[in-house]
């Protein structure tokens, strides 16, 4: 835990940790597990007939769709039998269908991975960022692709590690992107320590100061391109696509080596803040990974999918890692600082910490009273880039970030209701 500095009148200064050189090549392989769980966003009701059933045999690399003519799919990362299909509600009210698969043939799971036809058809769910397909579809509007060679959250080292060690492969990934998307510019954003490796990939390298939240897309756009994303719009809408270095590596492997990507690299952040990088099959349960690293968790600890600033907690070790799980963080009981019910004392720390200049002190007051439209209209709710620094510095321990995400969700709901009624 990084404490507030002794001299503390400025902004929080949370540095990204650079990957230590001696550790750089150590990526621990997690063996193929006996059971995996994949999840897929689910627009259907509980009782609807699906095209996949319990008992179906699946192969590594096989596309699984909920219905035959669905566009969205997920790639099975092992060879086995479907053991269960459940529906559940995830973050921000999204519904998912989880599909658990019992691995039958670990031997085959390891080998049967080659791409059967057009590689582009298998790029819908690449590790790192799931919606690459939309990026490839939308030929004309993207004029710049920015490859993030730095990791969004603190202590996570996946993209850095890939740029440091796999720049050769990234090079072919960059070439493929240039050919297939028609983007006029391909940039790579990295921390100062790996700029020389990044140069070798052929992308236009931009070095950023490794201080949180400089690696968030909106901040990169502001600092590197000088473009501010209009509040409430996404980077893609203004013609800029963001890809993690890990995605580019997966593209390269799919296109050049014709291997369907089924592995995910992630950083495990232990209770003492040391980190280990691991590679595991997508869908591997967290317990398998923690067991492989001899990390023991107890009742009342905290388990986070993602990093310390932006991750999501899960309540059980039996949750799987997904395509976008960049890190697993475990925290001991006594490291947990819970938020409080105190009111805002108007100290202004959040306002000074906010990289998007949102008037957080006023925003949190209107959000506490469910005034979502006022929050958007007058207090710049949609300008928030979701970095979590406001909660990090809050003297009163108000869950500011939580209020903001709830506010965004509720506002979106109000808007869609109005659209329906209009």
């Amino acid at each position: 835990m990084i404490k507030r500095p002794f001299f503390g009148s400025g902004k929080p200064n949370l540095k990204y940790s650079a990957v230590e050189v001696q550790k750089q090549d150590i990526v621990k392989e997690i063996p193929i597990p006996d059971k995996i769980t994949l999840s897929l966003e689910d627009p259907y009701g509980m009782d609807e007939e699906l095209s996949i059933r319990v008992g179906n045999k699946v192969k590594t690399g096989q596309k699984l769709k909920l219905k035959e003519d669905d566009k969205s799919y997920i790639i099975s990362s092992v060879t086995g039998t479907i053991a269960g299909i459940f529906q559940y509600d995830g973050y921000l009210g999204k519904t998912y269908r989880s599909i658990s698969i019992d691995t039958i043939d670990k031997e085959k799971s390891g080998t049967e991975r080659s791409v059967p036809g057009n590689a582009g058809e298998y790029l819908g769910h690449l590790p790192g960022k799931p919606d690459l397909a939309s990026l490839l579809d939308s030929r004309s509007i993207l004029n710049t692709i920015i490859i993030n060679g730095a990791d969004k959250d603190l202590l996570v080292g996946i993209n850095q590690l890939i740029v440091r060690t796999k720049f050769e492969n990234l090079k072919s990934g960059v070439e493929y992107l240039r050919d297939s998307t028609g983007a006029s510019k391909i940039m790579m954003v990295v921390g100062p320590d790996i700029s020389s490796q990044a140069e070798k990939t052929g992308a236009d390298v931009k070095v950023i100061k490794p201080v949180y939240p400089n690696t968030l897309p909106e901040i990169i756009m502001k600092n590197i391109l000088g473009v501010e994303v209009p509040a409430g719009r996404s980077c893609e809408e203004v013609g800029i696509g963001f890809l993690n270095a890990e995605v580019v590596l997966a593209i390269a492997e799919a296109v050049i080596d014709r291997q369907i990507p089924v592995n995910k690299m992630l950083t495990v952040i232990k209770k003492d803040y040391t980190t280990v990088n691991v590679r595991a099959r997508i869908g591997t349960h967290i317990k398998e990974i923690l067991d492989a690293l001899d990390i023991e968790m107890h009742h009342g600890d905290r388990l986070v999918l993602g990093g310390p600033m932006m991750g999501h907690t899960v309540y059980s070790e039996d949750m799987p890692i997904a395509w976008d799980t960049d890190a697993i963080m475990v925290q001991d009981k006594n490291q947990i600082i819970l938020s409080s019910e105190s009111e805002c004392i108007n100290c202004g720390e959040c306002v000074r910490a906010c990289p998007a200049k949102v008037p957080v002190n006023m925003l949190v007051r209107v959000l506490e009273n469910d005034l979502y439209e006022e929050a958007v209209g007058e207090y710049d709710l949609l300008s928030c880039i979701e970095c979590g620094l406001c909660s990090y510095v809050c003297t009163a321990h108000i869950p500011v970030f939580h209020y903001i995400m709830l506010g965004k969700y509720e506002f979106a709901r109000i808007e869609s209701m109005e659209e329906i009624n209009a």
Partner: protein
Amino acid sequence: MLNQKLFVGSHAPYWHDRTSISGKSYHIMLAALPAAVFGIYQYGMPAIGVLAFSTACAMIWELIMNILMKRPVSIGDGNAAVIGLLFGMLLPATAPWWVVLVGTFVAVVIGKQIFGGIGCNPLNPVLVSIAVIMLSWESLLDFNAMLVNYDFDFNMIYPLAAVKGFGASATENYTACELLMGQQSGGIGATFGLGLIVGGLYLMVRGYIRWEISLTFLAGVFVTALLFNVSDPDKYAGPVFHLLTGYTLIGAFFLATEDSSSPVNFIPMLIYGAFAGILAVLIRNIGAFVDGVVFAILMMNVANPLLDKIRPKAMGKGTKHA
């Protein structure tokens, strides 16, 4: 399922910089201690009595209000103790017990709790209370009368009263060094300039108070007093005299900086501090009151919500909606 271990769920972020309201309160009290201890050293047991009773009363009022309003007990956050301590520091050492009791009631109950507790008060509770006492029992804050039984080896006439009555010539009886070292009469914790400055610097460096407010307040006092002094050197005292007397220093570092009643954006903080400083000297020099700090800061407290509307454009809000 019952034996399964479950983990704590919460929203990101999972780190915190470990600041807290109570930590902040304790640091403010720590920074106020040099000046308070000096007051105790100078005035002895009566000063201890006032400070201790004031702090205790403020906390008890807070507790009573917590219970009456059926809200979580909040005396642990130390804010009531800060209010009590600062209120005591503004009083003369001989203040009677009932004025402390009433004053802390006004500060904690009327100044803070009825608005909804910490963070909801539009005015600085300490100043609300001291203003009520100034207006209701003027003689109790007349330091010449209240401290008449004390005899130290320095000029015991309250400096601001002397200047008000006799013009700038009265400043000859005080040297800047004496004023800085607390060789003047006044509130228990408001006279020891050096202690207040050390405490204020500590709070500014640690980030518990905003330097923008404190320094512009002092600058406002200095510049305004200087202009008055230049325009009529016989009538108006010099800027250094104004900086080191009355409630100027405790106002700059401990009263104007109160979180809830002061702005948070950069430019509003500068305006808030500067205008409070200017108003303080205006009230002292041409107003009816001997010391203007209390009403100057209260007036800027009222202006605070309006001032804080001056803020930078949020990201992505560019000039499109101008």
